[in-house]
């Protein structure tokens, strides 16, 4: 009886969430389009009638609309992941990493050294796990922007049978004091001015990893790079520090 009722409650809650994200996708986008559209027409077709100051304000409007567009998309993706069933299959993580690398923005004018170790084959939802790599590698690239060269390593630790993957960079890092905030939705540890972002990426990573029964965590010090770890089973009791850590800091 009780179980049947809580199942019904759950189904109702899921349905509500679905209706909500549908409405977000459709109804929030429309006014955003209008803000962006008319501001752009003003800027591009009526520029001669606008002072420099007015044009700068318009840029602020356009920037705001653009940012909110990304927020809406990211939130929607996060909601979709929540309600999606895992489609597990035997997957070569090497392939996923290669695909994720190909999706990254161009690195012209930057010197980036990728060190990619061979990765194992695991049971996972490849579409979702690729999103994990998209986010972690994208972050590593973003937060090493000031480094010459940026060094980004992808590797694996095998402790007591649980496969743990890590992505390590020599970027700006973060204050470990705030490590627990890293994976919250909309939580950001850097100023928008320094590093753009919506604060949804790592929340998405955590949701995907947890759906796989795993855990994600990170270690860092300000200005000394960051390492993100994720397991696809339980987290090892003591999070091991890989030997190569010092190398990336050199």
């Amino acid at each position: 009886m009780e179980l049947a009722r809580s199942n019904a409650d759950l189904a109702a809650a899921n349905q509500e969430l679905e209706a909500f994200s549908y409405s977000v996708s459709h109804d929030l986008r429309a006014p955003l389009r209008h803000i962006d559209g008319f501001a752009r027409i003003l800027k591009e077709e009526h520029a001669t009638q606008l002072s420099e100051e007015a044009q700068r304000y318009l840029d602020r409007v356009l920037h705001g609309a653009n940012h909110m567009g990304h927020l809406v998309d990211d939130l929607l993706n996060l909601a979709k992941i929540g309600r999606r069933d895992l489609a597990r299959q035997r997957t070569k993580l090497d392939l996923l990493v290669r695909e994720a690398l190909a999706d990254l923005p161009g690195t012209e004018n930057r010197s980036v050294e990728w060190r990619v170790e061979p990765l194992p084959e695991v049971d996972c939802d490849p579409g979702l796990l690729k999103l994990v790599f998209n986010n972690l590698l994208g972050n590593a690239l973003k937060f090493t922007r000031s480094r010459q060269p940026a060094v980004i390593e992808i590797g694996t630790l095998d402790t007591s049978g649980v496969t743990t993957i890590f992505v390590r960079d020599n970027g700006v890092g973060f204050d470990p004091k705030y490590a627990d905030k890293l994976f919250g939705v909309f939580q950001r540890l850097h100023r928008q001015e320094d590093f753009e972002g919506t604060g949804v990426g790592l929340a998405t990573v955590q949701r995907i990893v947890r759906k796989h029964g795993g855990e994600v965590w990170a270690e860092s010090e300000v200005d000394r790079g960051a390492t993100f770890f994720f397991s696809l089973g339980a987290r090892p009791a003591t999070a091991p520090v890989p030997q190569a850590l010092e190398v990336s800091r050199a």
Partner: protein
Amino acid sequence: MPEAIEILLVEDNPADAELTIHALEKSKLINHIRHLQDGAEALDFLFCRGAYSTRKFDAPPRLILLDLKLPKIDGIGVLEQIKSDTRTKAIPVILLTSSKEERDVARSYKLGVNSYIQKPVNFTEFQDVVKQLGMYWLLVNSKPPASAFSVS
């Protein structure tokens, strides 16, 4: 003789309609556009009835740009009626909408939509999309001949 309609735009939101028409104007594709604001009126227009009973079936629009969310009869309902009647079935219909929810896309294709486009939030991208679709459907694509609308 009534002017041939090239594009029928069915869109209830005035801001969206203005932006779409503006984008068409910028792409010089604006010659004969007809803008209607709800699904019921669009169907009256296409099926030459009600306020449009003097229209003739022999001058169908070259292209219908249809929004999904419309008052009275929504875009899916309009699409369904267009595609289930030989007199209108051959008119290319493009859904131009905010949603890319899989169920909307799937339903539209099942009903025979010719193209499904999610309006980008960014107006510059939207303008590109409108230009491309106008070029393709009005210039590249061969329009259905009169015989495509006959019963046999």
